[in-house]
């Protein structure tokens, strides 16, 4: 089992490698007028996703704000550039992709006991039914810092309802922690 610092270094090298290796493919995408970050999109990013996360001790409701600094999509046509920064449509993600995303969570099980969480994930989305719109598989690794406690996790789960509904299991091999989450995601 890798020490935590080494895992992070490996993840970082993987991430940089992915960006360098595939970034040039955007040049090959047929030049088209494409969407992107608009003011209304920015405003809507303030609306958090909601989830229920079950820890070994109790289940927390949480709000989550997520951003996708980079995503590589391999399931789209040549008209669509494979590398996306922050702005990602549902099919670009769920028709087959690997992404690096970061998020901030606000967990609460009762008023007055809420706490913040922060995470970074390297997550692959594999389409299973209807190009991932009906059912998709999520696989990856994540690092969570919840209430000041950090752990690395292996992530696996499913998405459905056009990628809006997720069920993910996260397991920390070092700390032997299991997390189950049902997530209703806006992107």
């Amino acid at each position: 089992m890798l020490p935590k610092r080494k895992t992070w270094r490996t993840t970082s090298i993987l991430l940089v490698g992915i960006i360098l290796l595939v970034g040039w493919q955007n040049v090959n995408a047929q030049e088209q007028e494409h969407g992107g970050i608009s003011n209304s999109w920015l405003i809507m990013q303030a609306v958090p996703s909601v989830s229920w996360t079950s820890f070994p001790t109790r289940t927390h409701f949480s709000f989550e704000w997520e951003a996708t600094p980079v995503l590589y999509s391999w399931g789209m046509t040549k008209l669509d550039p494979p590398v996306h920064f922050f702005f990602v449509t549902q099919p670009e993600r769920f028709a087959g992709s690997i992404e690096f995303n970061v998020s901030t969570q606000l967990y609460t099980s009762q008023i007055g006991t809420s706490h913040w969480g922060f995470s970074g994930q390297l997550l692959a989305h594999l389409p299973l039914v209807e190009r991932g719109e009906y059912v998709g598989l999520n696989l990856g690794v994540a690092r969570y810092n919840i209430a000041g406690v950090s752990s690395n996790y292996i992530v696996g789960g499913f998405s459905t309802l056009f990628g809006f509904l997720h069920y993910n299991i996260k397991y920390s091999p070092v700390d032997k922690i299991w997390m189950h989450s049902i997530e209703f995601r806006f992107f």
Partner: protein
Amino acid sequence: MNVKNHLLRFILFSLTVLYCSMIIPGCSSFFIRFITKSFEDLPSSPDTVATKIAHPIFQNVGLSVLWVGHATCIIQIGDKIFLTDPIFTETAGMISKRRIEAGILPSSIDKLDYILISHIHFDHLSYGSLSMLPKSTVMLLPTGGAEYTPEFGFSDYKEMNPWKTFESDGVRITAVPVKHFNGRYGFDGVWSNYNTFTGYVIEYKGRTVFFAGDTGYDPEKFKEIGRKFAIDVALIPIAPIEPHDFMKHVHADPEEALQIFEDVKAKIMIPIHHRTFVQGLDSSLTTAQNRLKQLITERHLEDRVLILNIGEQRILVP
């Protein structure tokens, strides 16, 4: 610590208010009634189409149209085959239930030259249906459609900005502006930078066909199309109608469809986008068709407006 707790309480309270403000108007809207109506229909099987044409493609024909259902039509001009907004699946987007089978089996389409996608809604850009089609075809998409189109293995893909013309082997296909709404999942329509919907005008061997896709009525747009093209056949949507205050902005009702027909100055109109799926809050699947029949009789348009049955093929020019 107190400050932190107050801050957290404030954030949680604000978010609760935000979600309530989003959910409460949604619950009272037609959207929830539509979802409820759709769920009621999910367990039922679609009605069968008695006789499906096994070989819809001719060796050569002047002009023929086969209505597969909804906005799906096989148009053949000469030796070229065009398929509009193909949907053969039992649901559109998991929820909206097909009430009548597709008029032909997708496997009976053994030759296909062009697929025209008018917009990215589930009932017009159906991933499951596109997977069933022959691969040696060119797929035309509206502006922004590429961001919603997975790879299906077709020979080529083209995004069509308004008034852009694609030409190949004597075929001219022009994207023409219509009036509809953006997005695929609802909220994504809000942040679109441009219109992700279009109509198409197909020109080949002296024949011209207008496919309106899915549209509301906009006199300026349709009169302009009428000025630029001499249209033989117009495929124009006539449903859904209700709730009319909402639908009138994005869907033409039968009266407006006839007005579009007049504006584009077509010789023949074939109504589409009705009878196939649960749509809007129309009281029955035939509400729009019945209203159109009434108008046809009143205006003596029997020879010019052809209401096809699902699966019916009409040779308009032998």
